[in-house]
């Protein structure tokens, strides 16, 4: 099974990298950019019999390592 885990900063957490990217896009003349928040994505192949089983494993992966739950949230998408 293939899944994509997306880790993002929780709302309200300052994101200096996102701000820098936002500024760079403006300076490049890309119109209409209101704001940028930077996150991370992980494409993961895993052995699992069902989406439910995969979801459990991926939650474990996120909470143990992929996300710092103090300042980050995660979502999972399946192919």
């Amino acid at each position, binding site marked *: 099974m293939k899944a994509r885990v997306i880790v993002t900063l929780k709302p309200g*957490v*300052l*994101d*200096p*990298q996102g*701000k*820098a990217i936002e500024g760079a896009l403006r300076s490049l003349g890309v119109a209409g950019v209101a704001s940028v928040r930077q996150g991370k994505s992980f494409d993961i192949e895993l052995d699992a019999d069902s989406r439910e089983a995969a979801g459990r494993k991926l939650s474990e992966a996120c909470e*143990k*390592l*992929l996300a*710092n739950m*103090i*300042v980050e949230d995660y979502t999972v998408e399946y192919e």
Partner: protein
Amino acid sequence: MNSPLRAAVILFPGSNREGDVARALRQASGEPPAIVWHDDRALPPGTDLVVLPGGFSYGDYLRCGAIAARAHIMDAVRAHAAAGKLVLGICNGFQILCEAGLLPGVLMRNAGRRFVCRMQHLRVENPSTPFARGYVQGQVIKVAIAHGEGNYTVDEAGLAELERSGRVAFRYCDADGALGDGANPNGSMNDIAGVYNETFNVLGLMPHPENLIDPLVGGVDGRGMFHGLSAA
């Protein structure tokens, strides 16, 4: 002093201040620390103090300190801390302690987006621990900082608890000890430069006291920490 402090410095791939902290420990206690590889399972018998040094463990992959916090040796470091023995994390070591759950909060990217590498004044907030007993309350010391992710962030309840229980060890300040925007190099909440765990046997701090132990390099204000630790 009954017996010299027995210290162990943990070496992760990408650590780079282990030599500096080993020198500071040797200068203060007369004994060189053991250097322990991250993939080892145990600390040397009789270890009093574990130090997680500065650097860029695992190239800061994923998040600063995230991979190192899951290294094999960290189970032994957790057990050492749970037994009430001393753990000191400096810079990347502070990030590792937060990622390992041994200290609350997280070190985020500096609010000003720049890596800051310069001298910095700190105000000693709580010297009633083995780490800081070489200083006095309110003392202003000058040490070095060198980090891109030192912006200490913790949830509101966690911050209130740190303040209430005297767990803020050091704050960023100016040369006169005044706090404020200009004196805070990275946006840390409440100007926090270092925090203790709830039993005051684990300290994490972003600045580098180990680099200020010799007049040749600009001051000796860092000595207090290592002399204090050695005076057990």
